């Protein structure tokens, strides 16, 4: 009897729970409780949470973010009712997409930046046509694999001043009277702000000609009159002081020439001028350790061979005492303490930097210099927005673009978690970086004998000269009687004149070929007697490592170990370039062999 009652009770209980209503299958994914992983979502409208939320300025109590059509719609303390699909935030850390406040973007720079969570870049001098072409994307929340770009377009510099050495014909300014027209021309080309290069007469070292103070002042005044910001490239204290006094909105470099003066600190803080210290690029001139430590020991998956080449590339100037880095760091610290708005900027792709990844390095360097970590996070999110008056990006607040990074660890505890974000969203779309493909390895042996044609065992040959960069040199190649004949002229015109024949080592110039098993190169050559030069390019780098050798009218075999190219990234060699001597030349090349 008792057991019957007991069984009945149990049966009733089971029946009760079986009768309790369940969500209807059709509505289930949208309505309740079943969270998707970021990768399962194929839309830019969704609910994300719970997360720990940094909104660009501060850490918020809200834990859920509603994204509608690629923009932040609303923040919530608790998961609200919503028909939007829910993406589980796993209580990870959500911050705005990063903003790199100092880049030079061309080619695939915007793609590379986004691969590392840099969703917006500020270009500090580049092709204004590139800028104009990319501008429309800023207002859109369409799916894209590129970061947004705001830019200075062509910079303002003197004849032969800094900025003219890169092989593109750019307009220069000569007198204050041209300022207004010059600025108007830049704005007509699509510049968002004006960047000026300036070196004071009082500077200890002047590397290149500079506009004078009167012109600087006139350009800044013209920029303000036409409603845009004027930022100034400086490299020393006197230039910085004069630029600020002339009314510059901000400086796009710090300096390590001498300690920052209290006067400049006060002027910049009082006048709310900002600075982009670009410590990473300077670290490459001075200490040269940070990339090895943060990136190269265990490279992030999205780091391409081209990026590694750029990160390991060195400046070719005479060495500067490395204790200057401590001076630079101390200047940065003092600026932060004085309350000057700091912006994180990498100056990619200069030597020691590359797009995207170097902004994270810059943030680590800022923190190590003594900038509080919250301020470091702001320096790559809200600070550039405030400094440049942007209004689409940089905050995770209603109305702003849903450019977001989900982080596995607390960035307040360890900024390097930015190197491997759990998810990147651009315009509310999940961005999954295309991971770089490995390049193919070359083994030793004959590359080309030119017996019948130009064919090479790997890659191919082509004439190459600085006419590509509006230089005045020229070159032609042909196969004649079983040898490669190169004729041309090397003439001054471009900063680095060249003319000769280039061998692209593999199928892809971006990836190059792996030369790890190669110890040297050997070839037969004769031609116009003189000093010839063999340039070796690492993938992603446009600055070759060069070796000079003498050529005579008689055939000789030149044997060069790879060690004559210091700094060449043997894992990714993209191109070898044989350059003829100065003036008119012709030479013949045969039996190029790797050892």
């Amino acid at each position: 009897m008792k057991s019957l009652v007991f069984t009945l009770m149990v049966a009733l209980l089971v029946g009760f729970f079986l009768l309790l209503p369940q969500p209807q299958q059709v509505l289930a994914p949208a309505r309740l409780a079943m969270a998707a992983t970021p990768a399962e979502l194929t839309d830019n409208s969704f609910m994300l949470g719970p997360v720990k939320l940094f909104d660009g300025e501060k850490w918020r109590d809200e834990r859920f973010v509603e994204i509608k059509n690629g923009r932040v719609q609303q923040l919530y303390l608790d998961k609200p009712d919503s028909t939007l699909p829910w993406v589980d935030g796993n209580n990870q850390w959500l911050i705005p997409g990063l903003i790199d406040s100092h880049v030079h973007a061309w080619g695939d720079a915007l793609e590379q930046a986004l691969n590392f969570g840099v969703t917006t870049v500020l270009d500090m001098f580049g092709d204004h046509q590139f800028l104009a072409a990319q501008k429309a994307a800023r207002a859109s929340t369409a799916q894209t694999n590129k970061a947004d770009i705001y830019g200075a377009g062509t910079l303002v510099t003197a004849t032969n001043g800094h900025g003219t050495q890169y092989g593109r014909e750019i307009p220069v300014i000569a007198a204050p009277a041209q300022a207004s027209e010059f600025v108007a021309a830049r704005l007509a080309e699509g510049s968002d702000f004006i960047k000026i290069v300036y070196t004071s007469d009082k500077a200890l070292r002047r590397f290149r000609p500079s506009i004078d103070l009167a012109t600087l002042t006139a350009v800044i005044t013209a920029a303000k009159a036409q409603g845009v910001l004027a930022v100034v490239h400086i490299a020393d204290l006197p230039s910085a002081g004069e630029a600020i006094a002339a009314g510059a909105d901000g400086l796009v470099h710090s300096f390590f020439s001498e300690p920052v003066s209290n006067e400049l600190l006060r002027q910049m803080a009082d006048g709310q001028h900002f600075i982009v210290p670009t410590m990473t690029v300077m670290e490459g001139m001075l200490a040269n350790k940070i990339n090895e430590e943060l990136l190269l020991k265990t490279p992030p998956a999205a780091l391409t061979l081209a990026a590694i080449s750029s990160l390991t590339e060195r400046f070719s100037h005479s060495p500067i005492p490395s204790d200057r880095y401590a001076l630079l760091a101390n200047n940065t610290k003092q600026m932060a303490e004085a309350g000057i708005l700091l912006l994180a900027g990498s100056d990619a792709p200069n030597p020691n930097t590359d797009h995207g990844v170097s902004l994270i390095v810059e943030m680590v360097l800022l923190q190590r210099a003594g900038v509080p970590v919250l301020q470091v996070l702001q320096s790559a999110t809200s600070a550039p927005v405030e400094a440049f008056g942007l209004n689409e990006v940089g905050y995770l607040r209603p109305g702003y673009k849903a450019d977001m990074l989900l982080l596995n660890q607390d960035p307040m505890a360890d900024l390097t978690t930015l190197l491997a974000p759990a998810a990147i969203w651009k315009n509310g779309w999940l961005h999954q970086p295309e991971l770089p493909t490995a390049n193919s390895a070359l083994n030793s042996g004959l590359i080309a004998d030119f017996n019948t044609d130009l064919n090479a065992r790997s890659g191919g040959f082509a004439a190459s000269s600085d006419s590509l960069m509006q230089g005045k040199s020229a070159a032609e190649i042909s196969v004649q009687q079983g040898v490669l004949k190169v004729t041309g002229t090397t003439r001054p015109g471009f900063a680095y004149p060249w003319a000769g024949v280039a061998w692209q080592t593999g199928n892809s110039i971006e990836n190059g070929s792996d030369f790890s098993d190669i110890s040297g190169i050997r070839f037969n050559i004769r031609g116009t007697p003189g000093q010839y030069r063999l340039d070796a390019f690492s993938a992603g780098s446009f600055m070759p490592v060069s070796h000079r050798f003498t050529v005579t009218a008689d055939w000789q075999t030149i044997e060069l170990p790879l060690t004559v190219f210091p700094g060449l990234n043997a894992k990714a060699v993209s191109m070898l370039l044989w350059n003829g001597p100065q003036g008119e030349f012709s030479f013949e090349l045969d039996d190029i062999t790797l050892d």
Partner: protein
Amino acid sequence: MSSLAIYQKEAWYDLISVWRTPGFVLPALAFPVVFYLFFGVLFSPAGSTSHAAYMLVTYSCFGIMGPAMFNFAMNIASDRAQGWLTLKRLSPMPVSAYLLAKMATSLVFAMLIILMLFSVAAIFGDVRLERSQWIGLALLLLAGTIPFAFIGLLLGLTLSDKAAPGVVNLIYLPMAFLSGLWLPVTMLPSFLQQLAWVWPSYHLSQLGLKVVAMDQGQPVLLHLAILGLTTAVLMGLCVLVFRRYTGAK
């Protein structure tokens, strides 16, 4: 008589004695259901599908806490006062049978409350949960009675029979409110929100809310650890007090 039979009989009679105390049964069963009907169903914001589910969890927590605390505190205090506890300890029945009987009664009441609240939620509140969520929530709530049973036991062993009901109410009701069982914890002032961490009922409700994915997002293990620790401390205190109580006789 086999010892299992002793346990069964004690449990049965404890249940009957409680069942025949309408002053206990009616409020214990009616309060959570009526409160939930009002605050979870009738006052639910228009168009909300999740309010009723959220409140179901918190009022279920509220509901199961009551019988556990009251049954232990009031009945043990009065058994002590009237000498029943002394008598029972002189009988061959182990003390554990006495305590487990009380626990069983608490579980029966908890189960009844769960059945009623779940029914109300499903019928009037349009709450729709996966079967695993319904069952998981019920099991969690049943297990969740344990720390509150210990609170009741501790009070029953220390308070007089006259003081017990008042003191239990004084703890039960504020604790329920401050843990966010009546109103969502996020609607409390922020210092009270931080204070909520003190109450075991907060951690139980967060675990329950986790089952329906509406919790505040702290890890499960943290809530479990805090609940476990609280239970262990209460258990230790009960043992101490019980030793003193029996030692003094």
